[in-house]
């Protein structure tokens, strides 16, 4: 049951906006540690708490108001130079911020937050009194304590001038009336002037919402109205074009087929074409959010972690304005946290090691996003000691994740990718931060769920970079259409590197499997027919060079039919293995979109076929023998 019946919408708005504010405050706190005297930073942080307090008051969240109020008062004194920031004060402030975030957690569940830790409140009060660590000082009472009861006789609105005189006693506009306002009653006058009454129950008249969400968040999205206007405008245009087409249809049905009519039809259809793709784009854009909203919570995490580990690490953000599909932002949150933890914990050396190797003591971890073509790249780069391929392989062998033989054939890139294997952890000692070996494999799985890939680049002594590559949107997938006999299949274009003819004289047999050498690299040939369990009726004519995180191979097919931007329709109840979904081609034909990773798993350890089987065609499946 929610404590916020009737206020759900207000609560949601508040959580989204106040959440952003708090993340901003968190980042500014990290900045503040470097520039403790920056007045404008102090001001901004003050305002952040102040604004959150104001909103919380309307939600009746008394405990949140109390906590924000104390923190705000502390910043008021800091910005006025009455107090100075000490490391102890900074710790209290950071703890208070964490407390506020915890309370947001309660609010998200639709529950009034519990009172903050009394120790925290005590510390805040001591900090306020300028005697942190000393005994309990007289602290200001937390603000919206139950409002004092003030009688409100009709027509007793104070005269503002009178009030002014009453509370200041300044001889401004002295009139006889001034004398009538004894100082003792000035509090009462103020109490009255600000109009708080005992009967005020802020929640009772809040906007009414009908949604009975238990978890009050994230089903909504904030969209720039300009973008919505564009959608509206385009759908209007499409409506007009539809009318035009309707008119043309009746003309044509009535036997009109002169050049003029046909030309008009042509124009209308191409216009519709353009408008629809514009509309698709515009709709997609409404789901796009700047990734900065996700990034801004990381500097604080990195800072806390580095401090725990006794390292000096600065997280540098870049490309925060890069836009990405909202659902992806949510799913990326945990993988990025993991990569940052990993960079701070394992990637970056201790200060002593850095000094020894002549590096600046402070290490930089860079979190960057940018758009490249139809992909978004997110990079987490550290300037630490880099990865040692040799050690990684040894570790994997030791853990029994790979065999000696496999280890010997691995190049650097493949060795780095070992960290993604379940059960692999490079830290000799498991820390409480990262290093349980559950994580990197989950990171990769999560990224792959988003149709993305993750890649590692590393240079010994220089640092390691994790590169996540994601499609711009999940709704549209560029595919390559390949054919097996007459049947077309779609494979994700993101995996395709090139298309080559398969010629008998270029096929060699290595270990009983057909392979082809492409620019010095020996690649296995896998036939699509075998993968699907179809008979291979004739020798394949083309090969598609495909590339996944684990391996590169050549997919043998009969022919191909070009590329298309597929709108994926998932098969909800019925999902054959190896099929990611279906799409409809321009000619109305339905095509299966293949899930290559699943097919590869099916193909049993990249099982290839022998050269003779490949070239003979007609040879049946392994079952024959």
């Amino acid at each position, binding site marked *: 049951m929610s404590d916020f019946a009737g206020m759900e919408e207000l609560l949601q708005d508040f959580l989204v*906006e106040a959440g952003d504010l708090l993340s901003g405050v968190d980042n500014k706190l990290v900045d503040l540690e470097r520039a403790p005297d920056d007045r404008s930073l102090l001001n901004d942080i003050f305002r952040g708490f102040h604004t959150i307090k104001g*909103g919380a008051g309307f939600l009746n969240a008394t405990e949140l108001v109390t906590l924000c109020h104390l923190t705000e008062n502390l910043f008021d004194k800091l910005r006025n130079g009455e107090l100075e920031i000490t490391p102890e004060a900074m710790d209290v402030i950071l703890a208070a911020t964490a407390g506020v975030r915890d309370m947001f957690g309660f609010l998200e569940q639709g529950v009034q937050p519990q009172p903050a830790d009394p120790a925290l409140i005590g510390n805040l009060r001591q900090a306020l009194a300028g005697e942190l660590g000393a005994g309990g000082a007289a602290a200001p009472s937390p603000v919206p304590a139950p409002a004092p009861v003030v009688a409100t006789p009709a027509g007793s609105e104070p005269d*503002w001038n009178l009030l002014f005189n009453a509370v200041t006693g300044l001889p401004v506009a002295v009139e006889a009336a001034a004398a009538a306002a004894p100082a003792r009653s000035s509090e009462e006058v103020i109490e009255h002037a600000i109009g*708080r*009454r005992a009967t*005020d129950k*802020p929640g*009772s*008249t809040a906007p009414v919402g009908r949604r009975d969400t238990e978890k009050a968040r994230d089903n909504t999205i904030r969209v720039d109205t300009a973008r919505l206007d564009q959608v509206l405008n385009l759908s209007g245009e499409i409506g007009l074009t539809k009318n035009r087409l309707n008119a043309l249809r009746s003309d044509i049905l009535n036997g009109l087929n002169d050049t003029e009519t046909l030309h008009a039809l042509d124009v209308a259809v191409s216009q519709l074409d353009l408008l629809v793709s514009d509309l698709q784009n515009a709709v997609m854009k409404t789901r796009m959010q700047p990734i900065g909203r996700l990034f801004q919570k990381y500097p604080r995490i990195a800072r806390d972690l580095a401090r725990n580990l006794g390292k000096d690490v600065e997280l540098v953000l870049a490309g925060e304005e890069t836009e990405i599909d909202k659902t992806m932002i949510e799913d990326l949150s945990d993988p990025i946290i993991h990569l940052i933890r990993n960079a701070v914990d394992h990637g970056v050396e201790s200060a002593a090691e850095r000094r020894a190797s002549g590096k600046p003591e402070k290490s930089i971890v860079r979190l960057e996003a940018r758009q490249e073509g139809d992909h978004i790249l997110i990079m987490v780069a550290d300037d630490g000691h880099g990865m040692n391929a040799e050690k990684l392989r040894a570790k994997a062998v030791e853990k029994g994740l790979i065999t000696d033989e496999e280890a010997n054939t691995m190049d650097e890139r493949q060795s780095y990718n070992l960290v993604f294997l379940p059960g692999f952890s490079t830290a000799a000692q498991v820390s409480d931060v990262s290093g349980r070996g559950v994580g990197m494999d989950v990171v990769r799985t999560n990224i792959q769920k988003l149709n993305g890939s993750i890649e590692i680049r590393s240079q010994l002594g220089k640092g390691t970079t994790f590169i996540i590559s994601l499609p711009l949107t999940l709704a549209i997938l560029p595919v390559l259409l390949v054919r097996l006999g007459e049947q077309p299949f779609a494979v994700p274009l993101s995996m395709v590197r090139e298309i080559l003819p398969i010629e008998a004289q270029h096929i060699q047999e290595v270990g009983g499997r057909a392979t082809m050498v492409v620019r010095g690299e020996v690649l296995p040939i896998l036939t699509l027919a075998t993968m699907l369990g179809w008979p291979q009726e004739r020798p394949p004519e083309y090969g598609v060079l495909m590339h996944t995180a684990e391996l590169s191979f050549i997919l043998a097919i009969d022919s191909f039919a070009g590329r298309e931007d597929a709108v994926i329709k998932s098969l909800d109840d019925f999902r054959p293995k190896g099929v990611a979904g279906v799409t409809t081609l321009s000619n109305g034909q339905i095509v299966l979109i293949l899930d290559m990773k699943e097919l590869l798993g099916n193909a049993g350890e990249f099982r290839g076929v022998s050269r003779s089987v490949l070239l003979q065609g007609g040879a049946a499946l392994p079952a024959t023998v």
Partner: protein
Amino acid sequence: MADPKTKFLVVDDFSTMRRIVRNLLKELGYTNVDEAEDGAVALQKLNSAQFDFVVTDWNMPNMDGLTLLQTIRQTPHLKHLPVLMITAEAKKENIIAAAQAGASGYIVKPFTSATMAEKLEKIFEKMGKGAVA
């Protein structure tokens, strides 16, 4: 009795708060409401269109509510505008500063539509009197 034509400008940097104030005003029958996210934007709007009433937050970036109030009072064609300050500050100094700058009223967050109605009524009443006197 609320004149729905009265045009309000609600100034606050926190959009949730603007929405709260807008909803409260709507409850009271005032539907002609525009918003501004800080004092500077508010001044622009006040200078480019006709408003009858300003409801402003105190603490905002760029230009705060007090400066906005002072500017309004110093601008000949705006100085007659009623300005209601809404803030979370219940401190004496703040109330004095607001009074000194010529605020028509002062409400401390959180408040209800009843409080708001009462405040508005008082202000309108006084304005009426002022016009006669």
